[in-house]
């Protein structure tokens, strides 16, 4: 067959073109996202004269990282993980313990202050290792059963950090977490712009230098964190996109579709599944270290079940298996949860008084006032928003190519089945 004329080989080109077209949508979304990401800090600082929204965006970036990571496990490999926040916690605590005074009071009697840039990767590997540890006992489980085990893991981990208070401080949390620092020459233009950012040149010692050198500490500068999280997200997207197209990515897809068939194709299902857990977890290790540093405080209650579920909602609602969809989903859900819903009571209140229904705003007996009532209904509204979005776009905001095609073909297939039956 290999001696066929070269002309015939073109027959494989159309599918590739088709794929390129589908990727074009992704390219467009990435383009828009990058432009927004670049304009956002400038626009919001100009409009509000504060960096509050930028710090919110940096926080949202953590969730984008988490969603990208969970998408590897749930979207690519089809393993439903309800305890993803556990790895997030592991990442955050890995950094917090070794970059604060916490261990001084612990049985170790020595405070470690390891640099952020190193700990970021340590956290990544620690989270990945725990991902594999969780993966191992769940190898034989599927679907609902797997979900229950991961749920248990997600409950256990924060509880451990809570109870090992000798080491972790338990409910008292770990505070005073070190800020990342850079040698001054990397500070870049973002730090100086019109005195918006806090550029502090002081002497400190980077971990690789033996003598004191001038350097730049993040010291909770929202813009610095914003830039950092953007870089992390870009790196994560590049990594995950390549993974998705790799041999391993196809093996995940095959396992998601049919595990027995995948084994029959020569895929080693054990290592492939373990890698899904480990690689998925590694992103949340990344995110955890970032989160610990940017928040400056890590406590067990930041990693409860609701975090796992929120990230899962981001993945499912954004479009499981599709990276752009998951990013957009994460941003939207973060916006709804942290901006739309909290501001709703005051918005409703002013809206009511503007259209002449101001009397609704007054408390009266059991009526808590319109703002109070909206406050009470917040999570009902959140649920409503989720239900509506899933009803309107069950495949997610930007579904993966395959899911979209599947829905499109379902109708065609039914027609064909009817035709075939009438001919038989």
């Amino acid at each position, binding site marked *: *067959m*290999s001696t*066929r004329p070269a002309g*015939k*080989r073109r*027959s*494989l080109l*159309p*599918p590739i073109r*088709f794929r390129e077209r589908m990727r074009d949508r992704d390219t467009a979304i990435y383009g828009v996202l990058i432009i927004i990401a670049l304009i956002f800090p400038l626009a919001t600082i100009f409009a509000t004269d504060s960096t509050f929204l930028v710090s919110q965006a940096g926080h949202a970036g953590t969730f984008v990282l988490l969603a990208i990571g969970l998408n590897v496990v749930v979207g690519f490999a089809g393993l439903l993980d309800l305890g993803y926040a556990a790895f997030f916690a592991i990442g955050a605590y890995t950094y917090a313990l070794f970059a604060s005074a916490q261990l001084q009071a612990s049985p170790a009697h020595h405070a470690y202050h390891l640099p952020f840039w190193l700990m970021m990767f340590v956290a990544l590997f620690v989270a990945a290792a725990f991902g594999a540890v969780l993966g191992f006992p769940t190898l034989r489980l599927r679907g609902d059963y797997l979900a229950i085990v991961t749920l248990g893991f997600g409950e256990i981990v924060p509880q451990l950090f809570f109870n090992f208070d000798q080491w972790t401080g338990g409910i008292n949390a770990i505070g005073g977490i070190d800020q990342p620092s850079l040698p001054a020459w990397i500070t870049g233009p973002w730090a100086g712009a019109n005195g918006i950012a806090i550029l502090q040149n002081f002497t400190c010692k980077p971990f690789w230098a033996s003598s004191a050198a001038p350097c730049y500490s993040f010291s909770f500068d929202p813009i610095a964190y914003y830039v950092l999280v953007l870089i992390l997200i870009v790196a994560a997207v590049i990594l995950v996109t390549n993974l998705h197209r790799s*041999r391993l990515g*196809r*093996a995940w*897809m*095959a396992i998601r*579709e*049919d595990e*027995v*068939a*995948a*084994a*029959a*194709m*020569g*895929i*080693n299902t054990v290592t492939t599944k373990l890698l899904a857990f480990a690689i998925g977890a590694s992103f949340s290790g990344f995110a955890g270290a970032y989160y610990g540093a940017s928040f400056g405080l890590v406590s067990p209650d930041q990693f409860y079940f609701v975090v796992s579920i929120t990230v899962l909602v981001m993945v499912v609602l954004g479009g499981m298996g599709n990276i752009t969809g998951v990013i957009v989903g994460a941003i939207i859900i973060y916006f709804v949860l942290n901006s739309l819903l909290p501001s709703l009571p005051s918005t409703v209140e002013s809206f009511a008084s503007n259209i002449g229904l101001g009397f609704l705003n007054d408390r009266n007996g059991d009526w808590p006032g319109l703002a109070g009532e909206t406050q009470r209904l917040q999570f009902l509204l959140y649920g409503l928003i989720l239900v509506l979005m899933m009803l309107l776009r069950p495949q997610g905001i930007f579904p993966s190519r*395959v*899911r979209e*095609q*599947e829905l499109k*073909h*379902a109708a*065609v*297939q039914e027609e*064909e*089945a009817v035709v*075939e039956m009438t001919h*038989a």
Partner: protein
Amino acid sequence: MALLEFEGVDAFYGRIQALRKVSISVEKGEVVALIGSNGAGKTTTLRTISGLMHPTNGTVMFDGRDITHTRPSRIVELGISQSPEGRRLFPRMSVVDNLFMGAYSRNDRPGIASDMERVFTLFPRLLERRTQIAGTLSGGEQQMLAMGRALMARPKVMMLDEPSLGLAPILIETIFSIVREINSQGTTVLLVEQNAHKALEVANRAYVLETGVIAQQGTGRDLLASEEVQKAYLGM
């Protein structure tokens, strides 16, 4: 020595014995058929060969190598691929991606590309449908894809489990003529079928399985002529 040697194999599902001292051999270049009714142990035999199940007693030898306890991924690498029972395609992957999955154990890109062309030559229908996702193909097309996918591993032995199941008679004709063609191109074929008549026509040799035991064996032609086989499986 035969290419594939299945020697005195006992296999169990829990406490139920599915195979009793089953011995089968497949020579290089042959088409061998396994026929028998539901529950006779045909699929179990294939699962045992492909490593998805391991026998309690007996050995499976392939190409002079003991593969009795080898894991499935390794067995595919060694050169045994299959179109499993019920086809088991990856329903949400495209036709091309399904074919690529068949070549998962291989690394030679040019070889994979030329095998892809070979599959498309054998099954022009798949070429037309190459970007469509597998779950939306018709039954016949799905069977073609399952066979094409098994071919993508460039196997020494290709195992087909009930390729005619649920297909229209005209499609069954097509499928079996393709089985012949694949075999004539040098791939050894082990065929499991309930459609005994068709299978015996194509096969050089055949085994009749009855409740986990080899009841008869012989050339395809002999078994077609055998009175017992005619009565039990050919409805004559």
